[in-house]
Every structure is written in structure tokens, then in C-alpha cells.
């Protein structure tokens, strides 16, 4: 009675394995889920890259979710067995006593109450976690299903349920992870290391502190009485087949849900259908040369009546915009260039332009007929109009 090292069994091997499966699936879900919620954070990018990309992360997340739900189905089967076949006390059910315990626990801690609460087999802290887990399971399962099967969901519900499910799924996960870090880690790892889920037992000291009422019952010999074995067998013969069928149906439903719909096609649909990348415009037809009218020498007698056009076509390329001597306008031609006038009105043979053309070798030359017209025009005094 007074040996603080005395140990008391808390959990069977099967329960400890359940807990291990829960650790595995929950941690995996958190590790693959939180980076999905905060995908743009640097650390999330790192985790996602380390796990092999977002698609792999999503697959791992779904495998862990499946494991989590399978564990829940198994747990329901076992709890049912304990309550229906063995008729054990439903020690996880919360009650007024738990609210009182929580209050007393707080008041005792801050020194307002001398006595610490004497707590039952599962104290309020554990019940809180257990029922939070059940709430989380249902909520995450439902919202997860919606996100996994959005087409099936929107067949029944309005589309806005999908983003709402995503928000709920994400924040519920944040709540669950933080609760585990604050509540669970403090209570079973930080304040003192609780071996119950590994070795299966607690020391007397820990029992006194956390399960005073339960310890009292054990010490008083009020251990949980199992019904006689023939009664157990009789009940089990009814319970086990029914529960097994229900569990199998649940498992089958789960598998059905995992493969419920093909949400999206796998291929990349073309962004742009029926548009040829290379499609040339019909080229603009090449311009054809304007028909050349026969030169009517008699009509070309003034600058305006045709002399200007002659200069433009024959000399304009150089003697115009490019600088130096310009032959583009009547004024320009009279003005001449840097070496003086180009034409001397009235003196065709003496005009430098005619001299140059007759000598040949200039880049641009008039045909003999054209030169004749020019000479006639100069001899006539090079009239403008």
C-alpha cells in the first residue's frame, strides 16, 4: 500500500497496439496535412519536396486516413464487445463529476483548494482527449470524404460545401495538432513521463495523482468483475457475428468511398482546340509596275507638264532627300548645288547638267530622247508653267 514503486496495469497489449496505430496514422496525417494547408510556407515546401511532391503527399495522406478509419472501426468493435458482451462499466463516458474534477484540479493548482480531486479510471483530461478524437474523426472523416469526392458531394449538397469542408478540415487539423502538442504532450510526457501506453502500467504515485478514485477501488478489491464464462460465450455468439458483419460492411463502405468517383481525367485537355499554330496569311500580291505611257515629247514643254516627272524618276533617288544637289523642285533646280547652277535657262548646250549627261558615265542617265526634251525645254527658257 505504501510502496510508490508498485505498478498498476492500465492498458492491454491490444490497446497499446491501437495507440501505436493511432500515433502512426495521426502523425502521418499531420505531417502530410499541415503542409497542404500552409502550402506556400517555406517549411511546407521543404516537407512536400522531401516527401516527393504534392501528389505523393496527397496519396500518403489518404493512406494514413484509411488506416485511421480502419482503426476507428476496430475500436468500435472492441468497445461494443466490452460494453455488450462483458458489460463493463462505460468508464470513458463524461459526467458532471468530470466537470467538477476539472474545476477542483484548477482550484487546487492555484491554491484555492487544499485537496486534489480523486479521479476515476479515465480522468477528465483523458476523456477530453478521447472525445476530441471522436469529434475529430467524424468531422475529418466527413469533410475529408467531401474533399475526396467533390462530384458525389455536389450531387447532393450545394457546391459551397466543398470550400467550407476544406476550411473546416484544415482548421480542425490545426486544432487537433496544437491540442496534442499542448494537452497530450504536457500531460503524458512533460509533467512526468507516462509509460502506460508503452509498458502498460502506472506507478502507485502516478495512480494517486491522476486516478485516485480508481486506485481506491482497486485497493478496496473492487476490481472489474467479469461475468461467468458461459454467459460471455452466450453473448459473444450473438455479438461477434453481428458486429463482425457491421464492421465488414463499414470496411467495405470505406473501400467504396476511397474509390467512389473519378474526380478528374488524367490527361491534359488541350488549352486551345482547333487552332493551328502555323497558319500563314495570304501574302499581299506583289505590286505591278504602272503601265508606262508612250512619251509624247511635244507635250512636255514645261516643268509642271512633265519635266518634273522626268527628273523625279531619273534623278530623284539621289538628288532629292539625300542632300547635295536637289532636283526635286523648280526652285531647287534653279538654285543648283555646291558647284553652281545645274541649268542655264536659254542655254541648253552650256548648262552643266547637259554637259554632264552628254559626257556619259554619270550614275543616272537620261535616254537620248529624254535628253533631247530637256535640252528643248532649257533652250525655251526652262519655263515652270
Amino acid at each position, binding site marked *: 500500500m*505504501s510502496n510508490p514503486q508498485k505498478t498498476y496495469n492500465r492498458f492491454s497489449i491490444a490497446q497499446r497496439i491501437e495507440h501505436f496505430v493511432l500515433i502512426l496514422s495521426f502523425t502521418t496525417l499531420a505531417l502530410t496535412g499541415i503542409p497542404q494547408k500552409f502550402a*506556400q510556407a517555406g517549411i511546407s*515546401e521543404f516537407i*512536400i*519536396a522531401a516527401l516527393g*511532391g*504534392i501528389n505523393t503527399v496527397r496519396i500518403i495522406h489518404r493512406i494514413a486516413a484509411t488506416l485511421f478509419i480502419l482503426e476507428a472501426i476496430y475500436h468500435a468493435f472492441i468497445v461494443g464487445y466490452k460494453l455488450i458482451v462483458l458489460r463493463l462499466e462505460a468508464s470513458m463516458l463524461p459526467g458532471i463529476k468530470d466537470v467538477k474534477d*476539472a474545476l477542483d*484540479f*484548477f482550484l*487546487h*493548482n*492555484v*491554491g484555492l483548494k487544499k485537496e486534489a480531486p480523486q479521479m476515476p479510471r479515465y480522468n477528465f*483530461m483523458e476523456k477530453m482527449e478521447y472525445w476530441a478524437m471522436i469529434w475529430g474523426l467524424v468531422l475529418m472523416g466527413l469533410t475529408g470524404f467531401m474533399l475526396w469526392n*467533390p*462530384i458525389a458531394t*455536389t*450531387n447532393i*449538397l*450545394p*457546391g*459551397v460545401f*466543398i*470550400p*467550407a469542408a476544406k*476550411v473546416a478540415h484544415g*482548421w480542425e487539423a490545426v*486544432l487537433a495538432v*496544437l*491540442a496534442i502538442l*499542448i*494537452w497530450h504532450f*504536457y500531460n503524458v510526457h512533460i*509533467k512526468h513521463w507516462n509509460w502506460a501506453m508503452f509498458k502498460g502500467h502506472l506507478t502507485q504515485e502516478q495512480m494517486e495523482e491522476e486516478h485516485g478514485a480508481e486506485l481506491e477501488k482497486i485497493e478496496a478489491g473492487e476490481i472489474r468483475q467479469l461475468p461467468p464464462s458461459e454467459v460471455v460465450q452466450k453473448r459473444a455468439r450473438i455479438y461477434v457475428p453481428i458486429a463482425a458483419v457491421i464492421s465488414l460492411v463499414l470496411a467495405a463502405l470505406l473501400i467504396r468511398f476511397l474509390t467512389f*468517383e*473519378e*474526380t*478528374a*481525367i488524367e*490527361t*491534359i*485537355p488541350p*488549352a*486551345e482546340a482547333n*487552332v*493551328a*499554330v*502555323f*497558319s*500563314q*496569311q495570304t501574302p499581299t500580291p506583289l*505590286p505591278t*509596275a*504602272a503601265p508606262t505611257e508612250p512619251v509624247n515629247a511635244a507635250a512636255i514643254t514645261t516643268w509642271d507638264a512633265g519635266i518634273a516627272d522626268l527628273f523625279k524618276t531619273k534623278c*530623284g*533617288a*539621289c538628288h532629292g532627300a*539625300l542632300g547635295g544637289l536637289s532636283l526635286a523642285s523648280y526652285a531647287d533646280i534653279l538654285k543648283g548645288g555646291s558647284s553652281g547652277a545645274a541649268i542655264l535657262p536659254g542655254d541648253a548646250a552650256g548648262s552643266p547638267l547637259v554637259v554632264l549627261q552628254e559626257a556619259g558615265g554619270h*550614275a543616272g542617265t537620261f535616254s537620248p530622247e529624254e535628253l533631247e526634251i530637256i535640252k528643248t525645254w532649257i533652250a525655251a527658257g526652262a519655263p515652270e508653267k
Partner: protein
Amino acid sequence: MRPILQKRLPFLTPVIVLLVALLVGAVVFLTAPGNVQAAPPAQTPDNSQCLLCHQKEGAIWQLPGGEGLSITISPEMFGGSVHAKVACQTCHTNIVEYPHPANSAQTTREYTLQYENSCAQCHPNQVKEIADNAHDRVKNDPTNPNAGNTPTCADCHNPHTQSTILKDEGGKLAGLEHAASARTCAQCHNDIYEAYANSVHGEGVLVNNNPDVPSCIDCHGVHNLSGPSASGNQFRLTSPQICAKCHTDESIMGKYGLSTDVLNTYIADFHGTTVTLFEKLDPDQPTNMPVCFDCHGVHDIKRVDDPQKGIQVKDNLLATCQKCHPGATPNFPDSWLSHYIPSKDRAPLVFYVEWFYKILIPLVLGAMIILVGSDIFRRLKTRKAKPVAADVEEKASK
């Protein structure tokens, strides 16, 4: 020593600043990439000699392949071009006299290709930029049926008429140039051009000459251009950033009353998250997740309220979803919040779920922290009152 230096420092500072500024200025000046990186050599004979014949309108050289090539150079157009002062011979290196040497080109294409490397003499930077661009990749891919059709410099910039490209102080093309650039691409991408011309962007560029609106080059680049057929998955995965360049810029979007939340709301959603992560991890991997253009259209992009194509119209959006989600029913499109941030009026369910957790999380965690805190408080107090050793002794003596 030290105080003297400190005393002198105020006088030294402006001098040092000035010297550094000069040095930086010199480096920037010397390394700034202009459009022309080398001066062309002089030639004989000069251009006027060539123009004497080549200014003749309607002059056509009949090529052996049957095509005619216009050999008319309008002195006005050439005189107004950036190359007015460049000698013909700079590019037409083999032509020094008349008659010209025989040319082996059978088609106009072959003739153009003869001058493929001419521009590099003066514009080596631009030639570097086009290396390995989308056109270059097609050109170097013998399996591509269009390998022979990729443009050379001259196909986009007619060397005889190309005038200085007008830009604003920010280096942005002036409205008319902007429209002209799209028409340049249209020469070979006419189907796309016609789709674009009817789009909200095309209308803005081609009809209104609005420089805010993108033409081809704003999304595909100019010389270093890229596209989905040549740059593959990478173009797809990086494309949201192309749209975001303008669509997250309040100074542009504000003018048209458009939201700048389009990128962050996209990234916050399942599709956008995936695309962003894919792009960060490996931009070359394929993805069937939609990017902007999968829903809004590519070249034929319309206003969201366009009755035929606008995806604000629910039937249009459903059809868009069904491209990838064949089983989608009329409720399905609402699962996407259409770039809206949930509020009391828009997607209230999402808004209230968020609100619920904004209360629940602090409440639950707060209660936990208070209880945990009280426990820590008691433990610290007890430990102070009686040291651990005494605690053990006392228990052992019980």
C-alpha cells in the same frame, strides 16, 4: 590619427560618393545593351547608285521556282528606316557592280535565308536572345513539320522599312507599335491572330491601341519568346505568373475595376496550390491542373460576363469544369469560389466556418493552456517549498 581622419571624413565623403557615382555610371554606360552593338562598314558604290535602279516601282525578279520577288526599294521608306545610313552592301555583301552575280535561290524563302546571318554583324545581342527561343527550337527539330518555316530576323523586321520602334520612358511599346507587333506575328500565326483579334485583349490592342492590354509579345516575349508547343510543360506551369504580371498590378487593374486578388485566390485553391508547388519543385513536369487559360481561354479570352464564353455565366463555367471533370453536375462549379474571398455575402458558409474556428481554436487551446499553466504553477510552488530529495525521503518514510 583617428580624430583627424574623422575630421577629414566630411570633406572626403562627397568626393568618394562622386567618384563611385562616376565609376558606376561609366560601367552602366559601357555595358548597357543598345539596339546596335557595332557600326556597319562603309561601302562602294554608295546607296544612291543601287537606288537608281531599285527605286523603280513594281520591279519583280522572277525566281526559278516560279515566285516573284519584289526588288523595289522605296527611297522614301528606306530613307525613313533605321538603316537609311547603312550601306546596302553591309548585307548584300556580294553585290559590288552591275550586272550582279548570279543568285542560286530557287524560292523567296531560300533568298531570305541567304541573309540569315547578316543582322548579327550589328545586332549580336538580339541574335543571342533568339538563340533557343521557341522558333529556334522548332527550327532545330527535324521531326517538326514547320522546321523550315521559322522566321529569320527579316521576316519580322523588314530591313528596308523598319523604322525606330517607339517606346515610352518605361520601355513599353507605344500603342500603335503594340498593335503592329501583333500584326507581325499574324503573318505566320493567322489562326491565332484571328482568335486574338476578337478577344478582350485583342480588341484593346488592335482597336483601341491601348498599351495596358497585352499583345502577343507581352506573354510570349520578344526575342527570347516561348510558348507551349516549344517550351512544353514549363510554359504551362509558369503561365499564371505571366497573367499575374498585369492582373496583380493595381495601377493597371484599377483603371478597369478588375480584382488584383486573382492570383492569391487561385494559389489558395487546390488547383493553384498544385500548380505552384509543381512549378517550384520541377517546372518541367506535366500537370493536368488548370492554369488561368484553361478556364478563361487562351487567345480568344473574353470578359468574364461575355454571354457566349464568359465563365461568370454558370452554364459556361459548368462546361469549363466538365472538360476535366466529366461527371460534374450543376452544383459543382460553386465549389470554386470564382476568385472571391469568402464574406457574409459571397460563400457565407465558408465565411462562417472560418469564423467558427476563429472562436473555437482560441477557446479550446486557451482552456488547455490555463489548466496546463495552473499545473505548472503548482509543481513549481511545491518544488520550491520542499526540495526533491526531501520529497522522496518523506515518501519513503511513510
